[in-house]
């Protein structure tokens, strides 16, 4: 995604916490940019050497729920595997179903310049919308 002229994501201001507004021409790009946005709050992604691979499959009742579940699953995996993920590829992605491969590296304080822990993804302000010829997704994190 580097070198892309289009903005991948931006931060949403929130008194107590923080949110991410991600953009994408396609749903895959949206989900990928959102994941990158989230992990960039946790570490400098340039420092990550992708080694570890994890496959995940998610189902949800709708697109927004899938978007939420995607973030929740990434946070959960990251916490449990103590890994920062930086590459995301999709084998399938529809409004209710997702199959993705994550690549990343186990957290290393010296190497990765770790930043902050994200406690949870909230339901507040959850949004996925088609705008023009692309997609915009918003989530707020509990920090």
């Amino acid at each position, binding site marked *: 995604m580097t070198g892309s002229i289009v903005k991948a994501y931006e931060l949403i*201001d929130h008194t107590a916490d923080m949110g991410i507004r991600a953009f994408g021409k396609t749903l895959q790009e949206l989900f990928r940019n959102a994941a990158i946005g989230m992990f960039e709050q946790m570490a400098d992604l340039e420092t990550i050497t992708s080694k570890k691979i994890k496959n995940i499959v998610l189902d949800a009742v709708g697109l927004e729920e899938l978007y939420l579940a995607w973030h929740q699953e990434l946070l959960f995996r990251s916490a449990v595997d103590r890994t920062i993920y930086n590459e995301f590829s999709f084998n399938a992605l529809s409004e209710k179903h997702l199959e993705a491969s994550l690549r990343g590296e186990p957290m290393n304080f010296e190497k990765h310049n770790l930043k*902050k*822990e994200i406690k949870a993804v909230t339901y507040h302000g959850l949004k996925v919308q088609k705008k023009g010829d692309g997609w915009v997704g918003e989530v707020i994190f*509990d920090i």
Partner: protein
Amino acid sequence: MKEPWQGPLEKIDDYRWRIPKSYKRGMRVDGLVYADERLLKDIKLDNALEQVANVAFLPGIQKYSIGMPDIHWGYGFCVGGVCATDPEEGGVISPGGVGYDINCLDSMSYVMNHHGFFQKIGEMEKSWEGAELKCQDFERARETSATPIRYLKLRPSKPVYRLKTQGGNEIVATADHPFWTPDGMVSLEKLGINDQVALYPFMGVPYESPSDDVIVSEPDIRKLFEKLGKETGGHALTQTLRHLHKLGLLPLRYNSQQVPSLLKILGYQIGDGTLHFVNKTGKGISWFYGKADDLEQIRSDIQRIGFTPSRVYRRERFHQIKTSYDDCEFSTEETSFKVCGSGFAVLLMALGAPAGNKTTQNYDVPSWIFKAPLWQQRLFLAAFFGAELSKPKTFEKHNHNFYMPMLSMNKKGDFVKNGRDFLSSISYLLAEFGVKTHTIGIREEYKNKKGVVSYRLRLVLSGETESLLNLWGKIGFEYNQMRRTLANAAVQYLKLKEKCAGMRKEFVVNSLRLQQAGVPRADIFDQLGASVNQRFIERSLYEGRKTEPRVGQDFPTFDEYLIEVVVGSGTSGMIWDRIASIKPVDPPEYVYDFTVDHPDHNFIANGFVVSNCGVRLLRTRLTKEEILPKQKEIVAQLFRDVPCGLGRGGEIKFSQQEERKILVEGSPYVVKKGFGRPQDPNHTEAGGCLEGADPGAVSDRAYERGKGQVGTLGSGNHFIEVQVVDESYDPSLSQFFGLERDQVTIMIHSGSRGLGYQVCEDYLRQLAGCPDKYGILLPDRQLLCAPVKSPEGKAYLSAMRAAANYAWANRQVLTYLVRQAFVRVFRRGENDLGLDLIYDVAHNIAKMETYEIDGHKKTLCVHRKGATRAFPPGHPELPADYRQVGQPVLIPGDMGRNSYLLVGRQGSMEETFGSSCHGAGRVMSRAQAIRISKGRLIHKELEEKGIIAMARGRTGLAEEQPEAYKDVNDVVRVVDKAGISKRVVRMKPIGVIKG
């Protein structure tokens, strides 16, 4: 600059503000906010006050929704919010006429049919099979219909009672007859005066067998085809006739089983439907417009008759209209469906539906309807009203009185006379139900380009109570669930209002009688009770009333009443009423029954995001003078020894089995394992362990995520601070806690870590459907909740208790690590250094606690979302050594300013459910904090203030910089001045570690 909050805030005194419950329809109690003018300015900048108001919607909430001076915006709940809900609130309920559960009733009990007529249960012995009864789907909190599978006629084996509700409904039933109450089904013998029961106030009309006169026959259809110009000899007519015959619709008689549905469809169609033929003679198409839910009911009736409706379409419509004030543009979502096919269209036309533009043709209420029995006329009117009649609504200013219902229609040019005739026919039908109407108003609306004038005709219905009761109680609404529920509530409201006014009228008569008998005024007041005020008596006795007495100002407004009584999410049609009396009656010869099912009910709220964090304070025997030479060393040691920040697991490992024990046993368990002193749990809120924690309610994912995190600090606003006492407010209390100026203390702020976050995430998902399921009306979907007594509520409480226990154990292990670090740096024995635990309080928790409300002891579910328990001296839950002085309340500030030790005061028991504030409260977003710190070195700035700060995360210090928070000194001054807690000492940080 953000727009400050604009809602109403009434000043009570310098530190208390009220958000009146009149602010938003649905608030059950006032909001009470503790703040001074200065804090209020900041508080108004985010949405926290709106959230205080939203919390006031929660069912069972007591006294007020409380905001502490450190409130800021949270998810659903504001952070810094306190509220208490009563699981028992609402007591029992009523069923009166609710048709869903009719076990063991007197033979005279009326059973409400799905089609809006009633029959006596005793007379249904031969006709019950196939009867379609109104019933309630509790799961979905909406009305539906059901066919009885069993009819029982029994000799009563139990005592029989007559139950009357305050609204005047009554029913005779056996002692074991169950009634739907806020606690689920409760048998009559367990109900008492003032308990709530569910009613279905709609009365309907009595059943009357319809005749077998023909309404539509084959020649009628043939004639219609001719009139339409359709070719009569060919295929279309034959096909249509064959279809209608096949569906059993030709001939159609008053007693045909399809007539009730057809009457409703026809009524709605004349209101909000259109009908036309493609190219005038082609296929017939009928459209129906309305709310999606209501349209589904019409679709289902159309399917019942044998036709196939389309699905419900949604489309956004843009409108541009010119009014005399302005040009407006707006968009609405329109939902509609259609039925394609000439059979259906022709049948409707034969029944009297107009085809084409309704404003430019003559049509009247179909004449055959006048010959139908009353209950059939009702179906037509109620469905027509579902489309066209204004909803029950009270005046804005005088909220006790209803607007006169209104029926409007548009007609063009010469057709206005026909419009008048149509409305007159409706008037005529209404008269049979005892509904009075006023004259028909006609107003010129606009002229089109061809000069044709459009008129708006309005039939105004009487606003007299009796007429309204007949309109809403006997006719009501079909195909409009919202209006039907409003009508049901309005019926019950009018009855209560009449009763109340009647009592006051009686009072006037009695007071005059007593006055004439020479009884002094004060005694009159005593004798007649306090249901009226002094002014009322004076008017009655001395001024000669010109008008009938009306209900007093304290009688609830209709809007308030609605919130109290509507059962479910607003479409069930059920209303809560209270029992006025239950009296035994002589048992009748027989009692009767059908069957029913029942879930349970009642409310607890807990829609908040928890990580159960809290604070603990340790006292050392060190002084500022002793620690300053080792200031950097001790901070570095703590930073090394205490795992903090992202991705750092604990050094101390617990097996999975041990982790489960931690969830059940809390901090005493880890103390037992050697991570503390035996007296530590005694100085921990709830002894560091909440009973009723269920490790089984915690998901595998939560275990997995929390694994290895006991004894880790986390990140965000969690920290360990080394502090020195810099101000004492009460010498004797300071002395009691062994704290004097310059003495060193340590504060630990952390929570239940990954396990807690996951528990929260899991339950937010699980509770997502609960507000709908339990019919809880909420202004914000973040404010999720479930009844305390519901399975979901219970499971959440058990899991949350487990997470709270985990949090206490976590802070206990952190305490152990801190003590070790101090021993290492100072090379002195632990006891020699002091390092005693003063106290540990949770500030993100829901707990069952007992309070006195209006003279009654109640066990309430107290929610402290970013608020600290603050029990006053003498509270039985305090450890013996603190009972004299009150519970220590620990308030961490931001890392550049101060922290506080306070003690709880009596005011907290009286006003805030034993709660106080919890910290400073953010005023700035993290992103903004990072932006304003660009180019600055926060740790250098802190060092200049004499504070050594170390943080793992690169942005942690910037995000948590002092400027991002309110001044904790202001916050604490408010709770002190308001009398809910009392300042003891203030501390200033000299060392901070953060994640």
